[in-house]
């Protein structure tokens, strides 16, 4: 498995994502102006403030040449993982349902918290100012029915006012996943947890 990690001007977590990916395979950076994904099997759209998050988080990055190639990979069923700003970019690009709004208390929050997925609990840090997941009621009903809600904040731990405690969603096919918390910052027991590795591993089965 070869991971490509996109790098935009303003990305913050791309080197951490590169390291996390390299723990389960090969990994390389992909410059935002590249239309070629250089033969990678899967892509991480990392956290940060791509293009300064001007206009709206992720709104400019979705038009980058590299994101065209990512859309192609997604359509072909390849694994695409969007983390934080990457989640925002994937929503802006229409590759994932819903949108991310300013946190309910209008403050940035950085906190280790628990995510629940398929009966499993993962300890992963979140850090964002625009992480309140939102979608219309009927869309929420639909994605829940389709099993597209990948991660929820553990009861009482929703840090931003996300609807139905949603922390991460996937597309219908399951090969595109976005989440606000940062699995790349939970791959080392020294810095808090290794549960983030599970998130990367969950995407490997979509690699061709």
């Amino acid at each position, binding site marked *: 498995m070869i991971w490509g990690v996109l790098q935009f*001007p303003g990305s913050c977590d791309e080197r951490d994502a590169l390291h996390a990916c390299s723990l389960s395979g090969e990994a390389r950076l992909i410059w935002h102006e590249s239309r070629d994904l250089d033969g990678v099997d899967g892509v991480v759209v990392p956290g940060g*403030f791509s293009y300064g998050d001007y206009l709206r988080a992720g709104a400019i990055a979705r038009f980058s040449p590299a994101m065209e190639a990512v859309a192609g990979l997604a359509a072909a069923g390849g694994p695409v993982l969007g983390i934080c700003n990457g989640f925002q970019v994937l929503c802006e690009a229409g590759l994932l349902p819903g949108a991310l709004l300013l946190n309910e208390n209008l403050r940035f929050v950085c906190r280790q918290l628990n995510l629940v997925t398929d009966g499993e609990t993962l300890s992963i840090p979140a850090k964002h100012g625009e992480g309140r997941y939102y979608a219309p009621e009927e869309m929420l009903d639909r994605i829940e029915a389709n099993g597209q809600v990948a991660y929820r904040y553990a009861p009482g731990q929703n840090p931003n006012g996300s609807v139905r405690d949603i922390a991460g969603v996937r597309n219908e096919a399951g090969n595109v996943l976005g989440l606000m918390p940062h699995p790349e910052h939970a791959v080392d027991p020294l810095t808090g947890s290794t549960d983030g590795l599970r998130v990367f591993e969950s995407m490997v089965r979509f690699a061709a």
Partner: protein
Amino acid sequence: MTVGTPRYRELGLTDHEYELIVEKLGREPNDVELAMFSLLWSEHCAYKHSRKLLARLPTEGERVVMGPGENAGAVDVGNGYAVAFKVESHNHPSAVEPFQGAATGVGGILRDVFAIGARPIAILDSLRFGELDSVRSRHLLDGAVRGIGHYGNSIGVATVGGEIYFEEPYEHNCLVNAMCLGLAKTKDMVRAAAAGVGNAVVLMGASTGRDGIGGASVLASAELGEGDEAKRPTVQIGDPFEESKVLECCLELLEKGLLVSLQDLGAAGLTSSAGEMASAGGVGIDLDVAKVPLRETDMEPFEIMVSESQERMLAVVEPARVAEVRAVCEKWQTGSAQIGLVTDSGQVRILRGDDVVGEMPVEALVDGCPLYDLEPADPGSWIYGNRATMGLGISSEDELLALLASPSIASKRWAFEQYDSVVGSRTVRRPESADAAVLQLPESGNAIAVSIDGNGRRVACDPYAGTVEAVLECAQNLACVGAEPLGLTNCLNFGNPEKPGTAWQLDRSVSGLADACTALGVPVVGGNVSLYNEGPDGPIYPTPVVGMVGELPDPSRVAGSAFAAAGDAIALLGPFSPTLAGSELAKQRGELDVGLPQPDVAAVTAACAIVRDAVRESKVASAHDISDGGLVCALAESAIGGGIGCAVDVQPLRDRGCSPEEALFGEGSGGFLLSGERAELVALGANLIGEVGGTTIEIAAGDRSLTVGLAAAESAWRSLSQRAEAVA
């Protein structure tokens, strides 16, 4: 133009200084030259009231890679790597506009660190505001915390620690000190000295506008008549996205070996950057202001030279490399322009196209400012106010809860959760989990610890002893995580040094800093001085802020400050003989006065070594330094952190002559609170005082014994957020 007051005086120069400038130039300076001299001869750039004092500080050490005089200091951490660090103030801008003031404070200190070729890896902040019941203080606190988060979070550098104190004397003049650490390959580091006659001077990053024309705004009004431009805010506006691009661009340029030297543009903009680069290199510089990319087309040469627009860097580049340098800038979508040349003239020449609009000897401009001796006089009594907020005769339980709820002691989670503390994957100890932040360095195979401290109230009680205590507290914090000090940076925040009382505080404080560093064997590798911090009610507390960086071999062995398990023994270690002088309790009782006991630096140093070794060998389960609020507050913090109570008897402190009250609430250097296996603690020479367990904090102290439920203690300690966000 104002009639009567000469323009140079409005710009802050004295008659004598102006005469010196005329003498050195052999003529009257023109407007451009006067603007440049007034800035480089200001206290901020010339350190004219502090430089003689700073000569007392020890700056040499085996591990020092770069010392004072460079953009940041640096120490060797092994395997070819160095850690660069520096603390700087942004007090006055933050008092005017806290969000942008604090944000650009962070931006400025980041540039200082990457200017020497180090990638920033951590930020810490030391903040001071008036009491939290003041609307103004809450406004400044909220703005400064948001501003720090905005800049640090956006640029992807972890904010790993800091401190906030609330004291009346900071009501009008808050303090915002930001510290940055960076990691560099020692061989790739670069100095700021310009070199190579004929080399190009390249300005990189943001364009230049009228923002932040600080002291020169007075000149602007004289120049432009009554135009609105003169009334624009003088606070700079930060753009972390631009800085992120400039940062990556500069690090790529240095890695490719394309730069001869690099300097950031901070206070006094192009004037100080160009002047200092030329001075350090013993060369001259020609700058053409017509080539500087501008935000507004009609800027005057003096405005371009003194603008403090953010996110700009100045580099010296060999002519053959300029095209490559500009290509890297284009890749990172950041600006670049060749605006000048290195010359052998010994002059800073300012051109606008073919016209020379200013020409000054580098020596006169940068190093010609007279240095002044202070005229210190001990005021001999407490010159600040006293405001009792706690009644006398209340129970020990209520006293403990009042101390824990004091915003200076209470948990700062509200603030640090607004900062990204994990980006970079280095943060082994996040804020409040240990006494110092710990960052792993896989590059050099070890870790560093960092702490920032400075209790202005205690320095006000005794500037010498209080400053020694600040250094010792940093050393104790590092010891608690098993780190050995490598170097120190400082920011000296004081009032007006021309007043004898403040001069005395500054003089005594610098002596304390020098003596403590010498005794500990820790070199001072850089620092910053911020004077004239006064409000209408007088000066701030004298506030030397000390940032210390240490090294530890194995980050997996770092102890936390929280109690770990029921049944663990609790012990006191170190030469700790607390008194109520200068304590939080004395403050709340309105009983502050001059005088502190003199700390025994040698004994504290020895205790630090014992704790450091014990932590490195995993002989303790927790280690916590006893500071604000005394032993009870240290006990409460360890108990709340671990979610488990304790039962303690303070008899060992009584045996040292402390009253029950002093044993509980007294403050002073040298105290460590340890927990772990009884035999291990005894073997360290510590005094056993009790045991971890239960759901209460139970302390036997004669007639002042107390029992407080853990939940009640935690509720008081976590009360900051509601109060910080109170609207009126």
